[in-house]
């Protein structure tokens, strides 16, 4: 069971009223410094392309600023940011019209940046599982998101998360074991 590391948001996905106060630059910089590296990690591992990850990262923050989203706290804003990034990623792949949700073979993927996925065994193992699996696992075990939060960020049904996460974990564990990684052994 994944602990609830982040409080659930209110049922208010976005406030877009003209009168909503926008975030000031100092607050934006603070949020950026706190979240950008982790968000880029999420995007890099989700799409396997450093340049695309940086583009989506910038676009995510831009949309966050333009949305005039009124968050209750930074965690709330951070979840909204991940949701924007996830939607942008989905839109990107939808525009590209992929025939499958799996990452193409590393050697043949047109925009696959091997430097990111093959930098270590974990990266190459992640490249072997589906994009949605990668996103879910990252949110659960790196971000510490609860099932409800994962459902909210990925726009899927909360009851499905548990079984989907279980299957994703099994698939990644299989890939990690195939690379000789064992529990307690640090990834190179």
């Amino acid at each position, binding site marked *: *069971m*994944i*602990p609830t590391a982040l409080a659930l948001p209110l049922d208010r996905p976005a406030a877009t009223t*003209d009168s909503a106060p*926008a975030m000031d*630059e100092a607050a*934006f*910089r603070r949020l*950026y*410094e706190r979240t*950008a*590296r*982790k968000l*880029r*990690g999420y995007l*890099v*591992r989700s799409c396997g392309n*450093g340049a695309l990850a*940086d583009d989506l*990262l*910038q676009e995510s*923050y*831009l949309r966050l*600023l*333009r949305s005039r989203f009124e968050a209750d706290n930074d965690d709330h804003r951070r979840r909204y940011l991940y949701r924007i990034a996830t939607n942008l990623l989905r839109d990107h792949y939808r525009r590209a019209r992929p025939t499958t949700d799996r990452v193409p073979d590393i050697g043949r993927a047109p925009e696959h940046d091997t430097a990111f996925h093959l*930098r*270590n*065994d*974990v*990266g190459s*193992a*992640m490249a072997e599982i589906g994009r949605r699996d990668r996103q879910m*696992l*990252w949110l659960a*075990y*790196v971000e*510490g998101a609860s099932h409800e939060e994962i459902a909210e960020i990925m726009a899927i049904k909360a009851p499905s998360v548990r079984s989907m996460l*279980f299957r994703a*974990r*099994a698939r*990644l*564990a299989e890939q*990690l*074991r195939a690379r000789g*990684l*064992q*529990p*307690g052994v*640090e*990834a190179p």
Partner: protein
Amino acid sequence: MSTGDCIRQETVLDGVRRGSLPPELEAHCRECASCAELRLVAAALRADAEQLGQTGPPLPDPAAIWLRAQLAERDDRLRRATRSITWIQRATIAASIAIGAAFAPGWLARVRDLFVGVDLSPAALDLPRSAGSPLLVVAASFLVVGILALWELTAVRP
């Protein structure tokens, strides 16, 4: 070795977050396949995230993102401020088209009359006066204004 979902998974995950597991939890992970798998995946992903955070290229400059947002915001404000003008232009276009359409049959008839059976009698040479009526002038003016408004609306702005 058990393979089902284990009630100690949350404890294992806490241990992974702290960086080490107590001996009894280590022993449990050797017996429980589910916890061993959880530990393997969570530890690997956390190590990977840490490595990505430390070794990745520099982040994009937040000042550039902020500036882009400000420019977009300014465009939005400008669009909101000129919305009423845009609607007036649209209304003018619509009125022009309507008036033009209402008078089109009459104009066509006049034009046709001009070219069918052309004669050089004084009445035909006196074209501007015979073709012009106050209503036609108004309609033509509206058409011109409408075309100008349409051109203004569709002009590509830098």
